[in-house]
């Protein structure tokens, strides 16, 4: 174990996988010489050289299309899109090509590729640079979607993503890059895709969250413990496939649920999870599933009002108190 940042854990995962498998290469805007706009690819060019660490033009759709072709040709591309917002320019290659190719070609090929994209809001970057688009990808069959909350999960999940033979959307939260945590040193440490984790046990309320929302949920759970409310925090980690077993078994034990999502509420993942909970265990619920969501608005710049649009610890605590007290 070593303490390191989420950024360094991702960086280490990239280095370990590039050392392990010569077919892994990294491409993206400013990933080589500039070492990444969030410095996740620091040191890669120096260690692995220009053949394997490739700066690209500002051509998002083609970054993904080239990765698709390279994966089809037998390589393991790890593409970085500078931020998830720019993935919207690549949606054709992501959805129409990457997500369809294996199926529409009758399983005759596969695409072992990973797309890393920093995302989320909270840095006063305004409407075009603060989006949480995770559900856009969750909606599409043909790809996995991962979103780690801790440095250990960041490392273990990225390594699993790179080794996986399916296309993986790998989201990274911009406000977590400097967060620190213990990370296993073992280069074979992997976090399995499709497995949620109970990050804090509790017995009165299940809080289901992911990425930065997990961190806020843990803080809320801590503070609520002081009020005598015991919360279990389930960190989804993998948004597609969803680990229903883990969150449903928690819900069956507590009977009360709060889902925390940074994305917009409309068609958000909270609605999907709530629906799955109602289908699977309506009978055990003692309160409706409560959602804490990003507001359905384009993100404003001013920090005074930006805060209102992103779930905060107080919002989570309020929602928990509501489901416990029966004031929903």
């Amino acid at each position, binding site marked *: 174990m070593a303490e390191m940042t989420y950024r360094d854990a991702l960086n280490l995962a990239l280095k370990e996988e590039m050392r392990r498998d010569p077919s892994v*290469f990294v491409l993206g805007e400013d990933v080589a010489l500039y070492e990444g706009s969030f410095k996740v690819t620091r040191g890669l060019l120096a260690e692995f050289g220009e*053949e394997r660490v*490739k700066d*690209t*033009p500002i*051509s998002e*759709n*083609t970054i*993904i*299309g*080239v*990765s*698709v*072709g*390279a*994966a*089809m*040709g*037998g*390589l393991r*591309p790890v593409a970085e899109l500078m931020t998830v917002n720019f993935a919207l320019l690549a949606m*054709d*290659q992501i959805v*129409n*090509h990457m997500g369809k*190719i*294996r*199926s*529409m*070609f*009758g*399983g*005759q*090929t*596969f695409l072992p590729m990973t797309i890393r994209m920093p995302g989320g809001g909270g840095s006063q970057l305004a409407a075009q640079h603060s989006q949480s688009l995770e559900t856009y990808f969750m909606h599409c*069959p*043909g790809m996995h979607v991962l979103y780690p909350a801790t440095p250990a999960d960041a490392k273990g999940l990225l390594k699993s993503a790179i080794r*996986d*033979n*399916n296309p993986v959307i790998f989201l990274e939260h911009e406000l977590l890059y400097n967060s620190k945590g213990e990370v296993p040193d073992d280069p074979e440490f992997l976090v399995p895709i499709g497995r949620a984790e109970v990050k804090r046990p509790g017995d009165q309320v299940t809080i289901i969250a992911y990425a930065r929302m997990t961190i806020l949920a843990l803080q809320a759970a801590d503070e609520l413990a002081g009020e005598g409310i015991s919360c279990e925090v389930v960190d989804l980690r993998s948004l597609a496939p969803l680990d229903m077993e883990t969150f449903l078994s928690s819900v069956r034990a507590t009977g009360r649920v709060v889902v925390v999502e940074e994305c917009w509420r409309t068609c958000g993942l909270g609605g999907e999870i709530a629906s799955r909970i109602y289908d699977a265990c309506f009978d055990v619920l003692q309160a409706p599933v409560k959602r804490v969501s990003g507001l359905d608005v384009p993100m404003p710049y001013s920090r005074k009002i930006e805060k209102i649009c992103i779930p905060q610890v107080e919002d989570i605590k309020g929602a928990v108190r509501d489901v416990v007290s029966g004031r929903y």
Partner: protein
Amino acid sequence: MQTRLRMVLPDQELLKLYEQMFLSREFEERCAEQYAKGHITGFLHLYSGQEAVAVGATAGLHRDDYILSAYREHAQAIVRGADPRRVMAELFGKATGICKGKGGSMHLFDPSLNFMGGYAIVGGQFPISVGLAFSAKYRGEDRISACFFGDGAVNQGTFHESLNWAQLWQLPVLFICENNFYGIGTEVHRSSALASIHKRTCGYDIPSEKVDGMDVIAVYKAVKYAAEKVRESGRPYFIEATTYRFRGHSMADPAKYRSVAEHEVWKARDPLPNFAKQLLEEGIATQAQLESIEARCRQTVDEAVTFAEESPWPEDSSVYEDIYV
């Protein structure tokens, strides 16, 4: 000025070109018939008229070279070696189809032939062909990536992004534009500010040339030369082949936007009878030989139709298969 055929290829190879063009035409015309009968459904874009491009170009490439195309790609797949029975079965939506009935007319694929797909998003194949070329270079493989597309595709962002990228990274991509002068009902000069498509590569410093896409030998020579250039230099090259589709854009299109006179001009340049005439005139084939080739092609397509008809439908359970590894 026509070249004397024997100066270009041996007799057997010339006859093979004729056979491939005839098979392609026969296959397409039988597809139209099967569509009318309701055996083929969905979108069906036929290649009749453009055969000299697929046949000449494929002959100019190596068997290891990748080929990618758009949705009008039956001929490219079959000429590369795809089994016509399994292609027809795919069009019928049968389990024995080349993609198990999941792709249909627009999504043929056979990696064992390095035929890396038909793509139905206009311009979708550009970056994928660049990525395949990158993988070949990265792995030290001696192959190039040949990317076919239409005149309509050159106004997509991926066209420009991919030309720039292929030249920037020095990748072996041969871009082959099949200019049939229309993107559905829009003529080139109504969609492209510079209608002379091969000139559009100058912004990326990619050498390009224009070739008569109704002349199989001209296409063969141009592609062979270009493919060798790409192989030697490791850099992209661009060919514009001018051609014409004798049918509408798809089966749904009666092609009313084209004049009869225009159609007649191009019909007179039909690559099949013209090449047959040349083969006869130069004494490479007798009428009887050509007829036996034609009969063989008809039989191949007959067998393909029978195979498709008799094949089973996919199982319902197959909808969940082949999505994830």
